[in-house]
């Protein structure tokens, strides 16, 4: 048992207990940590954005290598500053339009390719399912599951008759799917707590390896 002598480890421990104190109740120690967290995280983003994005991608090509074309993204980027000048605050819509247009134009074909066509191909039953009884059964169940679950999200007709049966089968698959995610999430949360305790026991108290 050899407690850490590093001042900054103690700071980290104090901040850890500061956040954990929220479990007891919302208190000044927690509020301090919460607001400190907000400030540091934004400050950190500013520093990294400058060194990793703005400086190498804009300052170097435009001001150091003098490539004139980079004026355009520079001006578009500056428009975001107008947000705080009431008279011209509408100007932030220009860079937003540029980014949103570009992102939507790139996303649409990519979505079709990866989330629709490829997934349809995965849903198709092929003669390969006749290989073994269990492959056949699981492929059939998956097929019914996909069709019924999609029908659950069909909004153009009241769910009556066959559509009602399909949508009720669909919700069963959906709930099993959410149950699976729930199970994995419990594991995720516990791992995070275990991680914090490992920090306290190892880096702070030196009780475990």
């Amino acid at each position, binding site marked *: 048992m050899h407690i850490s002598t590093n001042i900054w480890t103690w700071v980290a421990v104090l901040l850890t207990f500061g956040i954990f104190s929220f479990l007891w109740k919302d208190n000044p120690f927690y509020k301090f940590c919460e607001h400190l967290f907000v400030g540091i995280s934004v400050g950190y983003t500013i520093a990294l954005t400058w060194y990793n994005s703005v400086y190498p991608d804009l300052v170097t090509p435009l001001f150091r290598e003098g490539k004139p074309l980079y004026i355009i993204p520079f001006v578009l980027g500056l428009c975001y500053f107008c947000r705080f000048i009431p008279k011209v605050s509408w100007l932030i819509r220009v860079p937003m339009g540029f980014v949103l247009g570009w992102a939507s134009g790139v996303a649409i074909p990519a979505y079709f390719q990866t989330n629709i066509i490829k997934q349809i191909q995965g849903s198709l039953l092929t003669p390969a399912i006749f290989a073994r009884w269990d492959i056949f059964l699981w492929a059939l169940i998956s097929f019914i599951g996909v069709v019924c679950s999609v029908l659950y999200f069909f909004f153009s007709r009241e769910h009556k008759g066959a559509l009602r049966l399909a949508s009720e089968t669909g919700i069963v698959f959906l709930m099993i799917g*959410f149950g699976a995610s729930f199970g994995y999430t419990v594991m995720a949360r516990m791992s995070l707590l275990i991680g914090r305790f490992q920090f306290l026991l190892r880096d702070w108290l030196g009780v475990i390896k």
Partner: protein
Amino acid sequence: MRRSLPLALCLVMGIIMMIQFFVPHPVSVAFYDLTTKWIRIVSAFALVLGVGSLVLYHTDRLRRKRAGWEYSIVTLAGLVVTAIIGLGWGVKPGSPLQEVLFKNMLVPLNASMFAILAFYMASAAYRAFRARTKEAVLLLIAAFVVMLGMVPVGEAIWHKLPEFAEWILSVPNMAAKRAILFGVALGAIATSLKVILGIERGWLGGGKG
């Protein structure tokens, strides 16, 4: 002008990027390269909005001495100090930003926020997760099977349990998530299309100005 320019820019960029996807010609690839660089620059500038509104919010709270104004000092101080240290002494490893502010303040704060989730998970499991409906019952059963299947204890109860958990994940869960994928992808595509065509104008900000 205040609305038509951003909308036009969004339309043009959207259409061009969709067409570009289908044109392998070097000119199209070069155009693509150029715009990806610009987008990275412009999205880095969007940070200005976040920092600006945060600083405005906290300075305003400070000036008006509204409830919790002392904590605004903590946030503003944290932001300024971190930004100055980051911009001044660099972001490379070994810099004070990384060794002190990141490793011993941002990490414990961020990690502890996640860790308290485990406590909320436990109390929510006891107080919030109710098998009120047929669906919730299904969800909880699937969750139990998956949770037991993931840990060695499950294997001790029934040697086939991990296999059954894997089946739940790769058949019903897969079908449900694929159906959701279709729906979400079509939704994303439809909305991207509406953004490009100027039908979806939420991003402009509802105001007439």
